[in-house]
């Protein structure tokens, strides 16, 4: 049945399942997506069975535009904006296992204005109005940056309204305008002016409490929690252990409680990755200007894992809905995505 060439529009693999990706300003959303795209390069070289690609869906464009494999070079925006991407896992081998594992996903990135978001944490009704799309999403990718009161930052973040550019730029606002302009330096001025302050531990906790209250116990959601910028802190070990150290016991307990209602997985990521200099490992990231030290040695760590995990949850559910006689064999033949890397 699956031996025919794969056509993503002809079967359940093309079902439009949206993934809502959200994080406060300066948490590293754009970097995560760009780094995911970069990591796909690596997996495409290693895996002869599939080719993975990510494209941007732009209004008025019939065909998705492949996303360039470059780090983001743009400034945060003060406005609310959504961006649409499409991920495709294309089978390069024509057997049933590869055919059923070749699927497509749409991803919506919600870019919000950081200051307004903090206001939205005041009560549940304001929260639900602000985060309507997020609360209604079945699949959620949450991006948690380094809290402003975290104790392990290698490069502490200066206070708000600083004049020097700093930290990972965080939205796609200037993406289109910038395609013909040059690089980073031209962006640094606006970057410094628009940078938002990082959220504190208590703000992250409040956000998560309101999110879970709004999600309710049903339906069961897929929730990938990404701890970004991990190259800028010294924590190593199990993801839940790192979460506890970054955000405290209360957030850890909150996730543990809600694991009985939702599928929740925590990922530790570094979009910038590391480089070795003089025998020492150091972040491939310049805190002074928010750029990579060496773009040629850009090797993000674990940024694909949260996306892969959500894709796999969705795909296994899709296969479960297939023709009843084939459900068992579909699940058995399904080829999982590469696993999360250790941090």
């Amino acid at each position, binding site marked *: 049945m699956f031996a025919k060439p794969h056509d993503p529009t002809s079967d359940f693999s093309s079902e439009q399942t949206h993934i809502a990706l959200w994080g406060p300003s300066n948490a590293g959303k754009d970097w995560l997506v760009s780094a995911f795209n970069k990591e796909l390069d690596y997996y495409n070289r290693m895996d002869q069975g599939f080719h993975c690609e990510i494209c941007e869906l732009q209004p008025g464009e019939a065909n998705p535009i492949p996303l360039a494999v470059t780090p983001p070079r743009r400034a945060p925006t003060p406005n609310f904006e959504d961006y649409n991407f499409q991920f495709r896992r294309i089978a390069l081998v024509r057997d049933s296992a590869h055919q059923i594992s070749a699927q497509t996903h749409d991803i919506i990135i919600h870019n919000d204005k950081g200051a307004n978001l903090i206001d939205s944490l005041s009560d549940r009704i304001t929260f639900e109005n602000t985060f309507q799309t997020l609360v209604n999403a079945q699949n959620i990718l949450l991006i948690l940056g380094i809290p402003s009161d975290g*104790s*392990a*930052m*290698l490069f502490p973040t200066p206070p708000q309204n600083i004049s020097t550019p700093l930290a990972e730029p965080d939205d796609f606002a200037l993406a289109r305008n910038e395609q013909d302009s040059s690089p980073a330096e031209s962006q640094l001025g606006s970057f410094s002016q628009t940078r938002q302050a990082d959220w504190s*531990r208590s703000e992250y906790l409040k956000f998560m409490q309101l999110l879970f209250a709004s999600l309710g116990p049903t339906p069961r959601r897929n929730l990938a929690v990404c701890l970004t910028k*991990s*190259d800028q*802190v*010294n*924590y*190593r*070990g*199990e993801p839940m*252990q790192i979460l*506890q*150290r*970054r*955000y*405290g*016991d*209360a957030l850890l307990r909150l996730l543990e409680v809600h694991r009985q209602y939702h599928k929740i997985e925590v990922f*530790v990521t*570094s979009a910038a*990755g*590391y480089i070795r200099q003089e*025998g020492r*490992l150091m972040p491939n990231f310049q805190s002074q200007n928010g750029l990579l030290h060496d773009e040629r040695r850009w*090797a993000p*760590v*674990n940024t694909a894992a949260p996306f892969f995990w959500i894709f796999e949850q969705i795909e296994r559910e899709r296969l479960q809905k297939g023709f009843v006689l084939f459900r068992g064999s579909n699940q058995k033949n399904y080829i999982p995505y590469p696993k999360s*890397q*250790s*941090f």
Partner: protein
Amino acid sequence: MNRAGNLSTSAEMNITIWGPPQSGKQWMLWSFVRELELINQIYPDFRCEIFETYPGDDQLTPVRADPPLKPSVGKWRDFMWFFRRRPLKDDQAHHVSTFVHNMHISIVPGEEGIKSFFNLTEHEAVRSALARSRFVIAILDPTRLSSTGNKNGVEIDAIAMKKTTWNQEEYLKVVERLLETLATVRIQNRHVAFCISKMDQIAIREMDWLLLERLFGEQMVNLLKYYQSQFAIDVFAFSSFGGQLKEYLSDDAFDGNNWTVWNPINAVAPFFHFFQEIERTAIRQQSPFNVSNFIFNRQKMYVPYPKTNWTSTFAKENI
């Protein structure tokens, strides 16, 4: 391939190093690596090796002793290291005694580690991480004791005296808070090693508990003995510098390249103690129906880790 390549590893071993600011936490860790290099030169039975992994990279890279010359940034630091005791003799006893330990070592920032005992909400993450650790190394710095020199005849050098000092009561209070914090989370077989640092700057030559009593007072000993009903508590003394390094470091002519004078003493002791506890337990727990267990008495065969009599080592160094 698993994270450790071809090495079969034990479960992750969380070791947390706690101590007041500038008590020598980072120096202790790197002195452990340095001392292993020195031990390997004279240890006929085993070769002790340490590897590390980097985030997202499964390759094992040998860890080289790297003196932490830059002052600590006061931030939490994690290290993912693998320790292996590789046999150099091909007999049953040495093979029985061969283990790999998957160490997750955390250095608690000194100031925050102490503040976390007194400000329960602000530093809750640090306190909680400390409380969940099964293996704790608590460093006690005798050069910070304000009155030891007068009371016990301890000589503290001029450099150490310039820094902030604590008296015995203050030290006692902090250690009590540390033990209370550890007691908040029940962990089976928790080991706490109290390590008296900077022994190259102290003139007393006593062993472990007696040394603790002379430096930190009888009440400190009583406190630790009291908590022995909850944790396995041991006392060690060590010097990260050894006999000569301090002199070289304070010399303006020191060019930073001659590290042969870096000769730590007994920094390996708490680590070896932890490894030995884990290994003996693992051997004990192996099935009695295992054939090799039945034929060979593995527990008797086990080769313990070497121990340093640091008092005599110092005596030799000072000759």
